[in-house]
């Protein structure tokens, strides 16, 4: 297809889609309106199971089964990256030279690293109470580790990040999520129904039944997934040569 024809096709298709989208937007409930039937029911369900953070309740209680599918996608995507970014037959590894780092950068990175790591772990642990949770906390913790690459060099990062351990943790975390779901089945309730554990006291670390545990599993998985992903791309950039 010629480029000109393709652009015409795109213009026609886009105009059609745009017309449909505008028509749909005009029919949606007005922006900022008061009518949120699902939201209100989600808040009620979250309060009845003593989870202070409704978003965590939606993710790890009300739609915990969907979240299982989502972390499945996450796991599969990371697996695909590991396979695609492996060392090919006609490539070899070169040891990267230690790099000079400006002193203020080094100082800043090494001071911020433990703080950022702790923040990540805090976000995961308090996912059922305050804005945060496994998804965000995992990303924060994993990127905190990479301050080592900025502040020191690639070898220091490699020593702090045994890749096999993180790959295993990734798999184990998905496994833990599945096991928590199956525990419900074995105990006679439904998979991931959050009726197995006591709900605890509202607004404390132990509230929400299975929510904190599922949250921790997702936090572990996201953290190790991000570490493994970045390791793959950094390897390509720093170590692997044709």
């Amino acid at each position: 297809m010629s480029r000109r024809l393709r652009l015409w096709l795109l213009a026609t298709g886009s105009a059609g889609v745009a017309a449909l989208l505008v028509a749909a937007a005009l029919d949606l409930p007005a922006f900022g309106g008061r009518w949120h039937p699902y939201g209100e029911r989600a808040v009620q369900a979250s309060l009845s199971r003593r989870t202070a953070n409704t978003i965590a309740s939606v993710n790890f209680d009300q739609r915990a089964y969907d979240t299982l599918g989502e972390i499945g996608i996450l796991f599969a995507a990371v697996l695909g990256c590991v396979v695609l970014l492996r060392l090919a037959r006609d490539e070899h590894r070169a040891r990267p030279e230690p790099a000079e780092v400006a002193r203020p950068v080094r100082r800043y990175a090494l001071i911020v690293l433990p703080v950022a790591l702790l923040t990540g772990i805090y976000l995961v642990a308090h996912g059922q109470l305050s804005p945060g949770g496994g998804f965000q906390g995992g990303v924060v913790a994993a990127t905190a580790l990479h301050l080592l690459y900025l502040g020191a060099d690639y070898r220091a990062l490699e020593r702090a990040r045994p890749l096999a351990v993180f790959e295993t943790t990734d798999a184990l975390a998905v496994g833990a999520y599945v096991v928590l779901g199956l525990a419900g089945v074995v105990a006679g309730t439904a998979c991931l129904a959050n009726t197995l554990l006591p709900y605890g006291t509202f607004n404390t670390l132990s509230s929400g039944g299975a929510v904190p545990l599922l949250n921790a599993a997702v936090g572990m998985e996201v953290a190790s997934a991000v570490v493994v992903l970045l390791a793959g791309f950094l390897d390509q950039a720093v170590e692997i040569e044709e």
Partner: protein
Amino acid sequence: MHVFPYLVAAYVFLTGCHGLATSRNLIHAVGCLAVCQSSTYILLLAVGYRDGGTAPVFSDIRPGSRPLVDPVVQALTLTDIVVGATVTALLLALVLQIAKRHGTVDPDELRELRG
């Protein structure tokens, strides 16, 4: 202006589609796909917004004391961001392999698949 945020989402989506279709660089195309995806975040969060609403988290507010924005769409957006990031990484890894094997990242030059 009660539909403006929805129209912004539609605009961002179509911009991403335009970029995808006219892209001459696969890395650029992956970026455009990310733009398409962000339009869904705008749409979801716009649907869930409520005038004067606060975050649906009860660690420091009494239940029922304030109007709340919709937690369901926020939860959907949240998971999609992380899953989207890893899928983008997978696509970039594919682009990396294509660049290595074929020596180009222009989709027009990848006419036929080679073994």
